[in-house]
């Protein structure tokens, strides 16, 4: 379980997150949605401890960072490290033996090639594979479906369901609402640095309609498309 209380974060005078209170239970999948700049990635960075914040975060397994697999929106890669070496590095950092890396290469990635030369989707899949082999209890996945092909999309969805079965806690952000509504138990809407709405499975359709109304409004009409 992860409990966040009164979490706030500001960069100088710019308040990015304000008094976030939320609880993430084991064996559940949580979706975080919000516009670009609404604070999703900042929230994830605070949760992992990469960013400093005010407020408290407590977790069943402490310290939280040592049990969290964090998939970044755009994973950073060294220029001359292969996919296989990257996985070894991440597992080694957590004191885990990755075992037969090639045997676990479910995405058929070219692990002998430099990871920096991978496509956006391949980079995402490599980073995901590495954090899965770290055997974490908590997963924070920032845009896991971004740039990923349809086959891998299906595999990632299946992985998330399997992790849920194993009692892991998953927090996922995505700009594709349908991917979240397929896999999440709860979706939290983040706007202006605050959670303004929490919706369970039976209210996902309604939330989608509300979001469309909120984010689209009459903006398309303003374009005066001809």
């Amino acid at each position, binding site marked *: 379980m992860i409990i966040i209380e009164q979490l706030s974060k500001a960069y100088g005078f710019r308040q990015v997150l304000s008094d976030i209170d939320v609880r993430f239970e084991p064996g559940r999948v949580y979706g975080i949605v919000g516009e670009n700049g609404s604070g999703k990635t900042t929230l994830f960075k605070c949760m992992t401890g990469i960013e400093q914040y005010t407020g408290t975060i407590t977790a069943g397994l402490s310290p939280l960072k040592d049990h969290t697999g964090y998939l970044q929106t755009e994973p950073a890669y*060294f220029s001359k490290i292969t996919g296989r*070496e990257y996985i*070894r590095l991440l597992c080694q*950092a957590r004191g885990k033996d990755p075992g037969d890396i090639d045997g676990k290469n479910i995405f058929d990635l070219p692990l002998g090639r430099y990871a920096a030369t991978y496509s956006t989707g391949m980079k995402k899949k490599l980073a995901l594979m590495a954090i899965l082999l770290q055997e974490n209890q908590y997963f924070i996945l920032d845009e896991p479906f971004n740039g990923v092909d349809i086959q891998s999309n299906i595999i990632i969805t299946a992985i998330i369901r399997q992790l849920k079965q194993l009692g892991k806690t998953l927090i996922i952000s995505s700009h594709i609402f349908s991917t979240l509504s397929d896999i999440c138990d709860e979706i939290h809407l983040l706007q202006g640095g605050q959670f303004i709405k929490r919706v369970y499975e039976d209210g996902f359709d309604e939330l989608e309609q509300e979001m469309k109304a909120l984010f689209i409004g009459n903006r398309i009409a303003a374009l005066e498309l001809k």
Partner: protein
Amino acid sequence: MLKRQLSDFGIRPALGIGLLLAGFSGFSFYLFLKLTVAPWLYMLLALSLVSRLSETGRNTFLRLIFKRADYVRIRLAENGLTVVPFVVFLCCKSVLPVAVLLAVLAPLLSLVRINIPAAVAFPTPFYKRPFEFIVGFRARAGLFVVAYGLTAIAVIYQNFNLGIFSLILVFTVCLSFYNQPEDVFYVWMYRLTPNGFLWHKLKTAMLYAGILSLPVALALLVYFPAHMLITAGFLLLGYVGLLTVLLAKYSSYPQQMNLPQGILLALGLMMPPFLLAIVPFFYTQSVKRLKALLG
């Protein structure tokens, strides 16, 4: 680019360029004082610098944004200007044939594009403990070939100074593996305390620098037994330098090293007794910096 890098380092560009020129002159004089093959080595060094400008990705970008004639002019100017200090120094030392050869070869290199297949990774002996030595070794493998080649020449011509130069070259290249701070993710991910993290990094650096310096050190110990103590001294100095640079890197992490830290580091490397105070200082600072990420 140089101006921006100096500004990032916290130093005024004019002062930085002055210091670079002073450092370059000092290095050149020392090289020519100690080694008989200095002119050829000097030319190799200049050409290796120039060759970095021939990298395919960079050249593709230049060709895309400039007209063909402008591109050729820019590349000729880049290569020419890069070797000017080397050519001037070679002329001052009256090594005219090498100076002329360098002045001709450098512009010619602008016509060559070095196209190393970016995706092909050659194996390294460092796969067990990524990442600094894997990345660094692959990026600078050529310099290790040069260092080992010079060691062989040192043995054949019984030139101990050249052998020591090779050893210094190996350690200098290893030090360069630690000149850029990595993305915070690559520190955050460790399930280690700041102390544990630093020890892990230090052990890796010592072990792998040992592997890279072993061929040179062994050759010097076997073929120049009379200078065993000097070899051991330089080995020790190399290790201490590596330790200091590694700690200096994390003492300002995640920022790049700033000017005061750079001065301290330079002072320590030039006058090793100062390291007795500088190393503990960098260590304490590193622990403090890493605490924010590792807890």
